């Protein structure tokens, strides 16, 4: 167990360095964009005079490295600064949006992960049957279509034509959980369709790979039923790759949802990031990107820890 802890600590340290490098990259990228926040806020009606006045008010007349260090000195003690446009605290702006994104991701994951793994096991069991082929074709089709297209198809059939679900995920604080689940079902379903194929096929491949091993043959020879061979003998050894793919897809559920948010007008963090980039609102862009980066780092770490814990050989190294 001690080794696992050391690995976790090491990886967290590396993660922090990664975040630092990312913050420099993001700052540089925002600087490279044509125009600045004063021009973006004032729009076509900007005159040189009031652009200059606004730059001065926001401190944009200082050189870029100074502004970056200024931001960094706050960030290391947990203060991510204020939005340049609205003046409100970045954490306050991001927290409710990130909570919404996490909710949608969790909603989609709760449906997608068990479904994908169960389907994966079944198609491994019935490999090369009609069921296997159909499941593969359907999931591959949905992963190959762009998210917004899937969203429109779902809206057309489940909202416009039948009226089962609302087309826009209009949320307010006084809704019951059931109502929220109903209103956000279509965006969640879109996400499920997008991430299913990857997880299902990885489960199938990992299991089939193991089915050629001698110990599986042994299990078969002693007369174990096929489903038991897979669930009891093959699956425990297949967890490592599956967990990795699940973690990757969970990260995608959080960071890759911008299009789904736009189509269903869901107030998540992706939309916030897009808005912040158009206005060149650096502190918000920075904070959103760091949240995304941290999500990836943490989920990857969780995946590694998960594969160690499910593998006795790694759990008890000699």
């Amino acid at each position, binding site marked *: 167990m001690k080794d696992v802890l050391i690995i976790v600590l090491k990886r967290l340290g590396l993660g922090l360095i990664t975040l630092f490098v990312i913050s420099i990259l993001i700052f540089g990228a925002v600087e490279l964009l044509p125009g600045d926040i004063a021009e973006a806020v004032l729009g076509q009606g900007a005159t040189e005079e009031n652009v200059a006045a606004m730059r001065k008010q926001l401190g944009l007349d200082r050189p870029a490295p100074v502004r970056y260090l200024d931001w960094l000195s706050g960030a290391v003690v947990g203060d991510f600064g204020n939005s340049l446009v609205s003046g409100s605290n970045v954490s306050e702006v991001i927290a409710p949006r990130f909570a919404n994104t996490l909710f949608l991701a969790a909603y989609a994951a709760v449906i997608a992960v068990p479904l994908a793994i169960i389907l994966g096991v079944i198609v491994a069991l019935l490999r090369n049957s009609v069921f296997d082929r159909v499941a593969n074709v359907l999931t591959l089709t949905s992963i190959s279509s762009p998210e917004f297209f899937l969203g429109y198809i779902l809206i057309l059939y489940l909202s416009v034509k039948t009226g089962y679900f609302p087309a826009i995920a209009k949320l307010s604080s006084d809704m019951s959980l059931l109502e929220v689940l109903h209103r956000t079902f279509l965006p969640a379903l879109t996400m499920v369709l997008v991430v299913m194929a990857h997880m299902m096929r990885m489960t199938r491949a990992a299991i089939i790979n193991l089915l050629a091993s001698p110990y599986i043959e042994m299990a078969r020879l002693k007369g174990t039923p096929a489903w038991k061979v897979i669930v009891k003998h093959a699956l425990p050894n297949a967890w490592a790759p599956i967990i990795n793919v699940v973690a990757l897809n969970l990260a995608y559920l959080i960071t890759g949802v911008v299009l789904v948010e736009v189509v269903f007008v869901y107030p998540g963090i992706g939309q916030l990031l897009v808005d912040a980039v158009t206005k060149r609102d650096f502190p*918000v862009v920075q904070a959103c990107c760091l949240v995304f980066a941290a999500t990836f780092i943490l989920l990857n770490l969780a995946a590694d820890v998960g594969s160690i814990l499910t593998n006795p050989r790694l759990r008890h190294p000699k």
Partner: protein
Amino acid sequence: MSNIHDKELIRRMAEEAKRGRLSRREFMHYAVAAGLTASAATGMWSGVARAEPKRGGVFRWGIHDGNTSDTHDPGTYVTRQMIYLAHQIRSYLTMINPDNSLGPDLATEWSANPDATVWTFKLNERAVFHSGRKVTSADVIASLNHHRGDDSTSAAKALLTDVVDLQADGDHAVVITMARGNADLPWLMTDYHLAICPAMDNGKIDWKSADGCGPYKIEQGEIGLRWYLSRHDGWHGEGAYFDNVEMLILNDPNARQTALVTGDVDCVSLVELKTLALLKRSRDIEIDNVASGGAITMPMHCNVAPFDNVDVRNALKLCIDRQEIIDKIAFGAATMGNDFHLAPVQPYWPEDIPQRAYDPDQAKSLLKKAGMEGLSVSISTADSLFSGAVDMCVLYAEQAKKAGININVVREPNDGYYSDVWLKKPFCAVSWGSRPTPDVMFTLAYKSDAAWNESYWQNERFNELLLQAKAELDQERRADMYREMCLLMRDDGGTIIPFFNNFVYGRRSNVKHSGSLAASWECDGARAPSRWWFES
């Protein structure tokens, strides 16, 4: 009216008017054509066709342009979200009426001295902020001062540069002194930046609280997502029939359309023109197609060859087939331009100036006269200007071939178009929002020394007339001056104006309005929540 056929016609027209498909103007036009006298038709319009507004309901309004980083600061209003919201929660001194005339809002009356340099606005004494405090002269002065002074970041600063002094005349009157006479000052007060906010003790305005004296107040909301408003019972105006207004930011055209079709919203502020015909088929949806003062222009730099030759400029104006462009690019939702920057819905529009037609032969002969046969020019454009901006230029290039003119269409990057292409490339496409009066528009983009004189046009007579008309309080003389200016722009100016784009918005058919719709913004000058109602 003895004819039964006519009676049936009138009945049908009344029915159409009730459904909001016929405007007052159209109703009058057809009714008079059908043999009714004008006064009878007027009576009929108010009596038969126009249903009485009913109170109640939640008006859910899908809005096409909103950003999370918008703020309540009126000086930096730029998206539709904030502009529309301002028209609900705040008031202006004056407003554009549904028939596009100027009417009172917070100011009940206004008057000027003979040379239009000193203006007095009397305030409505009943007006109160949502907080319950009375609106006084101090609030108006602080609100206008927000756009003045060296440290102001307001985009409306240029509008008020001529203001030299603001004085309170008692609690309910404000005196504005101008450096130069300006007969349009009451019109300028409708500008969306000039919202009246409560003043603080230090003479600044408190915009952060989003308090105002408009017809609705904010119950809850989040910038860039959704606003939930309730009626402000102390509002000084008439209307505000809905109990609540819910504004939803729906930036995605498809989300907007679906929400309207499924009934998730009652009205959307912009409808995709490409699918307009399909949307019109639905009996549950009514489309409002309203001419506006927003223009598409194609300025040519008059100080650069070959555009320094007036014959070349006019040849290029003659070889554009405006009707085809309106049909194919704007899907019919546009008003034809006539190469002067004043739309039929705007004040002082001269109706007797003949429409310039597509005439490649005359263009050819003009070029021959200028010795420029086989002229070849480049026009810059970008996708982000408006929907179809690149296609429009390509179509124009095809049309110009008939006059032997070769137009090379250059597609420029969207980012930075207005800083790198506009005013720099000698021939380009531009999109302009509507301005309240010809004086504002002409001063902004056609006056010889204007910073945004996009065609670098210098016309002595035009500049002279512009200054005269600005301070002229006699309406008739003023209209004559604007007519002459329009003729100068049309025949000597360097700007091609193919069309004025319409506002096209949709509503569920149970949402009713008076039939005339202000052209200052989408949805009845952004005042749909205080002017429209639900049919029970």
